[in-house]
């Protein structure tokens, strides 16, 4: 496929889906999944632009690498927090975590 638009369309769809997931899902893990979707959408964009943009070097790819690495670290930490959350209040439902209510 030699057009840039389909790739960008795909990444934007994924991105919106991720946002939707993060906002509507009450379960913390589902939110995590949403975040992973968003990150993937970004990676697609990076790589697409690297192909179609006039980059001599493969900067896009390096960035994607970094994103993936970070996603992994972030997932790990997130899950640790979720588990602790689970231990403290017995559920992962985001609505119950209201201690910060103003």
């Amino acid at each position, binding site marked *: 496929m030699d057009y840039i638009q*389909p790739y*960008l369309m795909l990444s934007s769809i994924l991105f919106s889906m991720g946002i939707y997931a993060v906002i509507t899902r009450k379960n913390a*893990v589902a939110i995590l999944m949403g975040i992973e979707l968003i990150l993937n959408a970004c990676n697609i964009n990076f790589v697409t632009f690297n192909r*179609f943009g006039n980059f001599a070097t*493969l900067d896009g*790819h390096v960035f994607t690498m970094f994103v993936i*690495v*970070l996603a992994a670290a972030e997932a*790990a930490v997130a899950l*640790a927090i979720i588990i602790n959350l689970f231990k403290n209040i017995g559920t992962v439902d985001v609505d119950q975590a209201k201690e910060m209510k103003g």
Partner: protein
Amino acid sequence: MPIPDLGILLFLGLCGLIVGSAFMVVTSPNLVHSAVSLLFTFFGIAAIYIYLYADFIAATQVVVYVGGILVLIIFGVMLTNKIENATITSKTHNQIPGALFSGILLLLQFYAIFNTKWLVNDNPEKSSTVMDIGELLLGKYLLPFEVVSILLLSALIGAAMLSRKKVD
């Protein structure tokens, strides 16, 4: 309409797969189903990378995302649910505003995609991108490379600290 060439068909199929599984992730009430559909999404994306001549990225995608993060998520799912209710449900709330806004965002992005004149010069496919990435990682991006490694280390320690049993 001329017979679309095979590459396009495959690409469209892949896009359909990705979008469908992403949709499943987002909307399925059952958490496990969404976790599994996440798997398919990741595989779809790896295929797309191939299309974008990013073979090494596709490989890391498969290894890290599918192998690492997905497994982690499934662990998370399993650990954070009570045994008794088998179906690990995940209720959602305020869908309408969420849908509305993500829809608007989508439209905006589409608008942006179609209205900007991308300067497109379709670089030729490289045989293998690993060499270049390596050079870049240890050349221009040496500092971020080192910082990421420290980050990973701290994440590791942090996760370990968080999930150990309270001694006292």
